[in-house]
């Protein structure tokens, strides 16, 4: 399969996945047992209010028309209003989405800062003390609940040591230093699992590359071990590492919901959760759709990049 065929197929799969995901998300309101308008307004609300909300949510139309209206609205930026405070959902998401992306990227940076040296150290001397130390960290990092780690960080660095603000958000436009200091703890709590996964991944990739025949050949040609490591082994190991980083980005997007709650960080994840707790369906739907679309898009870019970097891979 040529690169273009592969790319087109990969793109079509992403479009298909998004299409079905949009039906699933659209169905959230329609699958709720009973009348969603009644569920939202409560059993004591008068019928008139329920009927008004039914019209507002398009519930009086046939189901396919509801979907077509809804998806047309999604594509044109007409995302409806929050049922709680009547603010356009588009505006809410527009403010909060960049904050979540900012947090997600920051978490990944922390994941890289930890995993790159740790994975390298571990792989240079497998089965040594520092290899075990790295694996030990990795295993713990995967086991610790991120929200609990966040609370512990808040307790230690926010309350006991008082070196970092315990919660909240500051825009980097207003005060870059305060913005970063507000993000360190949430990003660390979120990025630990990435660091753990990436450390283990980088270690096994380097070890795999070191066992390949080209390393032996290069040695036979009289190249220094260090040169081989820098020029060939690391280069080859870093490609799959970057790919995995892309996958990790997706997982971080799922994780922001929890971490934003822990740190009262006003991002998209918290918006979705508040929506869930208040049955604010337009907010839940668009919040989830935006997060999922981002994930699908990132995965697409990662896969296409990977297929360019590694021409052997064709699916």
């Amino acid at each position, binding site marked *: 399969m040529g690169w273009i065929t592969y790319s087109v197929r990969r793109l079509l799969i992403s479009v298909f996945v998004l299409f079905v995901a949009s039906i699933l998300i659209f169905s959230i309101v329609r699958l709720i047992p009973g009348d969603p308008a009644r569920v939202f307004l409560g059993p004591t609300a008068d019928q008139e209010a329920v009927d008004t909300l039914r019209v507002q949510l398009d519930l009086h139309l046939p189901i396919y028309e509801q979907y077509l209206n809804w998806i047309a609205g999604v594509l044109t930026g007409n995302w409806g209003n929050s049922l709680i405070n009547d603010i356009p959902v588009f505006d809410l998401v527009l403010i909060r989405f960049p904050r979540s992306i900012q947090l997600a990227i920051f978490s990944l940076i922390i994941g890289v800062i930890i995993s790159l040296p740790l994975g390298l150290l571990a792989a240079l001397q497998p089965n040594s003390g520092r290899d075990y130390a790295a694996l030990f960290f990795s295993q713990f990092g995967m086991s610790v609940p991120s929200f609990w780690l966040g609370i512990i960080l808040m307790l230690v660095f926010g309350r006991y040591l008082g070196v970092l603000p315990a919660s909240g958000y500051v825009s980097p436009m207003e005060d870059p230093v305060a913005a970063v200091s507000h993000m360190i703890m949430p990003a660390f709590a979120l990025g630990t699992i990435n660091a753990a996964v990436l450390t283990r991944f980088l270690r096994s990739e380097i070890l795999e590359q070191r066992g390949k025949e080209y390393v032996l050949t290069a040695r036979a040609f009289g190249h220094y071990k260090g040169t081989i490591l820098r020029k060939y082994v690391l280069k080859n190991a870093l490609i799959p590492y970057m790919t995995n980083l892309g996958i990790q980005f997706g997982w971080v997007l799922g994780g922001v919901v929890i971490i934003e709650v822990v740190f009262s960080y006003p991002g998209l994840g918290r918006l979705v959760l508040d929506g869930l707790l208040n049955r604010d369906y337009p907010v839940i739907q668009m919040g989830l759709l935006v997060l999922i679309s981002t994930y699908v898009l990132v*995965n697409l870019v990662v896969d296409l990049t990977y297929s360019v970097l590694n021409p052997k891979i064709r699916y």
Partner: protein
Amino acid sequence: MLSPNWTMLKELAAHRLGQIGLAIVAIYGILAVLGPVVFTVDPSAVAGGERYLGPSLQYPFGTDGYGRDIFALTILGARVSLYVAVVVVGISTTLGIIFGLISAYFSDLVDEAIMRAVDVLLAFPGILLALVIIAILGPGLNRAVLALAIAYTPIMTRIVRGNALAIREEEYVLAAKSYGESHWRILFREMLPNLTSVVIVQMTITFAFSILSEASLSYLGLSAQPPQVTWGVLISEGQSVIGIAPWVSVFPGLTIMFTVLGLTLLGVALRDVLDPQGEVNMTQDI
């Protein structure tokens, strides 16, 4: 790929990480099953006068704002987590085996349909698929369990399918086909036994991460509701009093961490013993 046997059990007992994992899992299992019988606590009872006591011999984990023994509550939470994990693993493994085997065996249209469905479900990163399902069903322990079971099914499906594809062309399967054995027999009598190893390893990992995920959901208020006690609920309650009584959050969190650690170590050891060429996929904290 090999089927489990006694030799492997012995190997597992000799595996260093396996020993640590087994020890932690054994303690967890015993406390979860027998603990609530020995350390009785009524989660809705309010014991006055002993609020926010720090850890002591009498109360190893301290007490909370209602004067309740955190240690006893944590053990109660262990039982809930055991229930969650067993149901999630049970449902997702059963469905994953059925869909995965059918997908690999019948290929073409059926395979395409199942795998595209898996693609769609896996397009929801991390905990988001569970959130979609909870958005429909509403919060609650059993609803969260159902949501997690659905969320873990595509992962098991993909693993079973991948491994089943590899053995589909094996001689014993072809031989069974030429005997005219029924599809059902070939799938579940010939192929499934040879997938036991990968399935067991994946079950262990799902067990661990379903505990972690349920804790996240109940922390967010989307799973069990107070006064029902889960680890996530305890941590959430403790967060509001973290300044005066940090132990309310600290100990249940440590308990989650060690339980998950024990299970993942066991998973790694099982993989080493049962499926030496395989890789444990650890990115399933959903």
